[in-house]
């Protein structure tokens, strides 16, 4: 089914807006068969939008999609599949309750309009698909019992089986170990040899250089660089991705004193996730924590808040030792924790600004009989509105009346209202657009200036450099390196990370 005819897929002058925000402005890109094309760019640069347009999920506002000789103003998902365009999403779109074999073979049956299915031919189809990409997986297992790396290979096998000519892979290496990445690259080279065009989306520069032969870099919805991979140096790619200006504008506040330690963590261990983690955070200090997926960074953040069970170690706040494994104690000691996605999903949009502001820790405003006196609440609301410079005429207005950036401020105010000594923010800007990201970082800076300490868990390197005083890198559950303020730079951090 797989055709070896060379294919040329290009898009020209694609424009796409969501609501008022422009996601892509006049983007052009071209890929040919037998090519591994890198689509690079930071979070929010428009990579996902471009993939979705090229695979028929979104229709562009304007622009031309050209597949071999055919021209489209927009594609439907079905058309895309018919033309041999396949996307491997980060969630792989596999059915956990069916066997690997069925996951691979089922689309083939549907494609051929079969009404019946039998085990033997299912196994045969699946095995052939796996042979085609040169991997060996137990296909009789249900997908729910298969590792992430193998799931990905199953998704690739399924795509190749469907006569893929153009394969998009959205951040395929995020959840993989180095060994698994090597296996993935072998497979990508296999399908490249068969004439398939692959678009590899990533922001990990070393991987891009290893596997891709052409590159397009997106920043803020525009193409800022494209060409042959060998014409770009690591530095050029990273500069294109981040934009020089972002790198230089650090907004880290001045540290008054590093002597007054607010939080002291020593020898914290939760075998096998992480072990012997020690660090301290001073008043007003912003400490960055980074690491790859599965390195233990999230678990560490949760452990400090008492949400993740640890075996041993010590956490003290303001010199007082904290009982381990108790979120209640952590809260009482003044540790706040904001999990990822809370900043983007933490609002009751139809409710008033005031109600949103008091939503966290509402018990604190309780008076006799459990009542919430209006006057007290109004005071609290007014204070946060002026403190965080939320632009509104009336706190009783619904949150939807605010601009995006101001909504972000409301979310943060909500969490800051508990007045923690240490605020743990886990991925505070995941999925946030460039403008709001800036807003969030500025609010963090302002709070830090007034003495609040931060533990910022993030895999967004430029963001860490922008705001943190120090950054520690977690690798396989251990602190692999600590970067002091003067040592912070993007390429070293990337290098340490991978």
């Amino acid at each position, binding site marked *: 089914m797989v055709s070896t005819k060379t294919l040329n897929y290009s898009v020209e002058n694609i424009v796409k807006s969501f609501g008022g925000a422009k996601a892509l402005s006049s983007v052009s890109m071209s890929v040919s068969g037998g090519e591994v094309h890198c689509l690079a760019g930071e979070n929010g640069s428009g990579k996902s939008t471009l993939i979705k347009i090229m695979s028929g999920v979104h229709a562009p506002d304007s622009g031309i999609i050209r597949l071999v000789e055919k021209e489209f103003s927009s594609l439907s998902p079905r058309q895309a599949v018919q033309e041999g365009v396949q996307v491997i999403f980060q969630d792989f779109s596999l059915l*956990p*309750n069916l066997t690997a074999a069925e996951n691979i073979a089922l689309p083939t049956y549907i494609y051929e309009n079969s*009404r019946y299915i039998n085990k033997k031919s299912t196994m045969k189809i699946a095995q052939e698909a796996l042979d085609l990409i040169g991997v060996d997986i137990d296909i009789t297992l249900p997908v729910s019992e298969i*590792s992430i*790396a193998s799931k990905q290979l199953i998704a690739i096998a399924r795509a190749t089986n469907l006569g893929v000519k153009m394969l998009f892979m959205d951040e395929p290496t995020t959840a993989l170990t180095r060994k698994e990445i090597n296996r993935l690259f072998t497979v990508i080279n296999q399908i490249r040899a068969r004439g398939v065009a692959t678009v590899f989306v990533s922001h990990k520069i070393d991987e891009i250089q290893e596997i891709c032969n052409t590159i397009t870099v997106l920043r803020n919805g525009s193409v800022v660089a494209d060409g042959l991979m060998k014409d770009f140096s690591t530095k050029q790619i990273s500069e294109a991705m981040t934009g020089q200006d972002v790198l230089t504008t650090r907004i880290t506040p001045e540290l008054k004193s590093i002597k007054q330690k607010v939080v002291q963590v020593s020898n914290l261990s939760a075998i096998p996730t992480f072990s012997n983690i020690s660090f301290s955070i001073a008043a007003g200090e912003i400490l960055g924590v980074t690491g790859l997926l599965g390195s233990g960074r999230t678990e560490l953040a949760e452990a400090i808040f008492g949400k993740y069970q640890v075996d041993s170690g010590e956490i003290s706040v303001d010199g007082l030792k904290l009982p381990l494994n108790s979120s209640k104690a952590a809260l009482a000691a003044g540790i706040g924790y904001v999990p990822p996605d809370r900043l983007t999903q933490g609002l009751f949009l139809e409710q008033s600004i005031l109600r949103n502001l008091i939503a966290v820790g509402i018990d604190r405003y309780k008076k006799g009989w459990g009542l919430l006196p209006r006057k007290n609440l109004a005071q609290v609301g007014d204070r946060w509105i002026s403190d965080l410079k939320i632009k509104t005429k009336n706190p009783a207005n619904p949150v939807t009346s605010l601009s995006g950036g101001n909504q972000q401020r409301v979310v943060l105010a909500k969490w800051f209202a508990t007045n923690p000594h240490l605020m743990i923010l886990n991925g505070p800007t995941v999925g946030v657009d460039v403008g709001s990201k800036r807003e969030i970082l500025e609010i963090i800076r302002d709070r830090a200036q007034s003495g609040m300490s931060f533990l910022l868990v993030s895999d967004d390197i430029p963001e860490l450099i922008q705001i943190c005083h120090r950054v520690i890198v977690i690798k396989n559950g251990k602190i692999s390196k600590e970067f002091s303020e003067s040592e912070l730079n993007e390429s070293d951090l990337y290098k340490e990370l991978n």
Partner: protein
Amino acid sequence: MNIRKLLRRNETVLIFAIIIFSLVIGSKSPEFFTTANLFDILRSSFVQLLFALGVLIVIISGGIDVSFPIVGIFAGYTAVVMMRKFQLNEESLLIPITLAIIIGAILGGFNAIAIAGFGIPTLIATLGTAGIFRGLMLSFIGASFISDIPVGLDNFSTADLIKFESDAGTLVRLHVLVIPVAVITIAVSLLLNRTIFGRSVYALGGGIEPTRRLGISIKRTQAKIYMLVGGLSGLAGILYVSLQRKANPYDLAGSELDVIAAVVLGGASIMGGYGTVFGTVLGVLFINMMKNNLVLLGVSSSWQRAAVGVLLVLGITIQAIGENRKSKRQKTAANKEKE
């Protein structure tokens, strides 16, 4: 398949439960291990198994149907009423059965419209239609008990495949329905495992978005499922009327507990995606065995319903525990692989 995996299967657990239960009752009352008792259990299982097969399909697809008993009695009762009103061939068995299946499928079609067309959650949709169907039946079709059902249906209630007098002098009978019910059971199993439609049902239960991306039409699959369940329920309803030799529009309501409990005990996941026909057969047999024989243990019949309720909760608890263990196993497996 290795032994450990086999032991973890729901069906295996259920077989053990059935054996243990049999031994306990059998030791208390020798009546239990008689052919007569076995045939009685089978006879009381036929209708329930047909309902259960429909429910199994719905549950695998990630939905739930609570309207099937009403659909069943609606179809059965209406078929009888139509037979009399239009003076159709009293002797015929095929006519009322066909009528009931068609009526059931039409009612299932309304469920399909509510669920696939309007996207109403399955529990709410079928709860609502159950009320509507029942009201329509009682106000427009009839609310009175019919004791003289058509001769064909009446005679069928005593159509026995095997009939002999036991040593104790009691009449031992096995109803001929055992054959068609077995055929339908196998057919449903083949449908689920050997057809693209069947696999789509499993896919739907595994996740709606991935299923859609496979190119399977969610709405069409759902519509087929609910109409099929309606048809099966209609068949079960008319057979119930025949076996009871009366058509009572107030019957069957409330029997959803037994059926859903049987399907869940049989290993179908209430979250969708998992379930087997074999498990459902065992579940139905177990529930009926228990209901028929708790009396032999000296448990009053008013406790039967409670016992079934306990089994349902127990079945779901076992599933939940199994699910937890499974995810733990997976985590350790994934960690090992990483190393």
